[in-house]
């Protein structure tokens, strides 16, 4: 098997995640989809690391995980406080940028 297949899988997962961001209204699910996209990137990085025979790709994936952890903490905190003030977790309800 060609290890490039891991890249195709990563591309597929990334696209699915992106589509999820676009079609789901629940902020929590949207967040999950973002996590899915990040994971897809990590898979691609790990596959690259293996192809090129050095560990830099894994390091970057590692950093991605750290950043994702930080992002989840803040993002979920935002969702919770948003839910508290609006009693809704829908991203469409937070349309204050509307003219």
């Amino acid at each position, binding site marked *: 098997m060609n290890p490039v297949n891991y890249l195709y899988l990563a591309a597929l997962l990334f696209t699915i995640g992106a589509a999820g961001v676009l079609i789901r209204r629940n902020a929590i699910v949207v967040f*999950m989809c973002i996590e899915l996209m990040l994971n897809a990137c990590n898979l691609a990085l*790990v596959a690259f690391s*293996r192809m090129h025979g050095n560990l830099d790709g894994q390091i970057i994936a590692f950093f991605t995980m750290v950043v994702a952890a930080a992002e989840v903490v803040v993002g979920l905190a935002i969702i919770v406080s948003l839910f508290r003030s609006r009693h809704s977790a829908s*991203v469409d309800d937070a349309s204050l940028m509307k003219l």
Partner: protein
Amino acid sequence: MSALAAATSTGEAVQFWVLGTVAVVGALCTILMKKAVHSALCLAATMIILAVFYLANGAYFLGVVQIVVYTGAIMMLFLFVVMLVGVTAADSLKETLKGQRWLAALCGIGFGVLLVAGIGHASLGPGSFIGLGEANAAGNVDGLAALIFTKYVFAFEITGALLITAVVGAMVLTHRERTERARTQRELAEQRVREGKHLPPLPAPGVYARHNAVDIAGLLPDGTPSELTVNKTLRARGQIRDVSREALNDLKALERRSEERLGRDRDALDRDGRRDGQEAQR
């Protein structure tokens, strides 16, 4: 390890196709499941499969971190928030923005096709495949550590700062300073009187007659169910079981059975009635 140095083995190919399919299905379920809990569980499954792929690609440390941190910690955090937030109308899969779904599908498909085309276009043939045999020679963790604490030490330190900031940020966002005194029972009662609704405590759910489950609305004296008796979250989910018809039907059946048991069948009654009438005519 030696397998990693060379090309991929048949075993890995089988593992890729089986688990890869499951991962895609899990991802699709994540975005298509109606309930956030189900989405979270599907995502956790996908992540575990990704952890397996990491291991297969020689990223042993990352594989373990994926399971422990991502699946174990981050996804559990998601579940906690789902629990906190509860179920809302946002869970509906019905699209509210005009054309959004079509545009999303178009963009998604276009993007995916372009990505795949890009990967296919790039010169990433088997010839460029090196493998991690050499890099992992001293152990994957040792190799990563050597890089993190030399080449990437500043980035590593900065991520530490980022995590601290995130923790403080989350605390600031969710912490609510109580700026006024909590209202006493008496004040709450007075407020209820002023507003003039539900002076007594809310009625309990379905404890009348035979049903004492919390998802069954209690019946008013006329037999209609009262929404007030059911928990708000259940109401939002639409999980109220309506047993009002059922109760009436049960009553009818009970009446019929007791009539039968007491021997008062309708025919006899009818006959008695007719006889009484004839006697009256005479």
